[in-house]
């Protein structure tokens, strides 16, 4: 009986709204262009630089995106304080990534505030997403 209920509860978990990482990139690029008409498109090199940059804020002076997400976005990471494993960020290694715009927005908001003490700009998000898409 208990097992049946557990199965039912699992089945009730909401299915993620599927979308493509390329759509998310296009959205962020469009936003960046609205803010800066001279924006020449997302740069994976700038995205990589953000990924490896050390932070300044609450996550600690040494903490950057890479400290929780591992030195390579194709690898699994680990939350520095709680020890919880984090699945890879690159869609090539984890097809669930960058598929849900609301999910991506939520984590950019939180993690950029923690690491940079401010929200990331549309350009930074476009760069970061392109860097993740190209990590194969």
């Amino acid at each position, binding site marked *: *009986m208990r097992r049946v209920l557990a199965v039912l509860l699992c089945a009730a978990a909401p299915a993620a709204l599927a979308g493509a990482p390329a759509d998310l990139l296009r959205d962020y690029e469009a936003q960046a262009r609205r803010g800066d008409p001279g924006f020449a498109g997302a740069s994976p090199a700038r995205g990589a630089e953000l990924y490896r940059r050390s932070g300044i804020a609450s996550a600690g002076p040494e903490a950057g995106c890479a400290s929780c997400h591992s030195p390579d976005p194709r690898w699994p990471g680990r939350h520095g*304080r709680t*020890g*919880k494993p984090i699945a890879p960020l690159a869609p090539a290694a984890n097809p669930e990534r960058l598929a849900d715009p609301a999910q991506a927005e939520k984590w950019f908001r*939180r993690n950029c505030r923690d690491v940079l003490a401010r929200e990331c700009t549309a350009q930074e998000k476009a760069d970061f997403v392109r860097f993740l898409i190209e990590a194969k």
Partner: protein
Amino acid sequence: MSFRRFAPVAVLVLTVTATGVLLASGPEDPERRGVAPRTVNPTWRTECGACHVAYPPALLPARSWEKLMSGLADHFGEDASLDAATAREIAAYLVRESGDRGAGRAGRKAARAVAPGETPLRITGTRWFRHEHDEIAPGVWRRAAIGSAANCGACHEGAAEGDFSERRVAVPREDRTAAHAAGSQ
């Protein structure tokens, strides 16, 4: 009265009795479920299980969850903010399953150990937690594979599913990296 007319009544009586027996031993049995919640809200499980295991709601009183949920933008030094509708849904769930509202015996014990004037935000800071873990030496919490007392899953294999039973506890041994890190400090 013939048996034919009586049979449906007998079947009904039997069904009702059988259902009653099944329900009595089902998942609602509060004394057997330990600290696991009666129901699992999938939004809570996903959102509050992203950075750490989704901690059992039974281990804090309702007022603690209300306070914690009203300060998610600065959550133990991290930004765990949610949109208002999601936060409301999760807060209602946590209160419903909290130690002083929804819990079984194990959770009620945890909630009773909190003094009426206190509103702790950490399970690991409560008297109940220290008591349940008094066999663990202070240095053990700092082992590399554990890192923090809040990393329940390091020792409780079933933590992610809310199973904290004694059968599924294994404290990780000191490893070489941890010994090395301790030596170099």
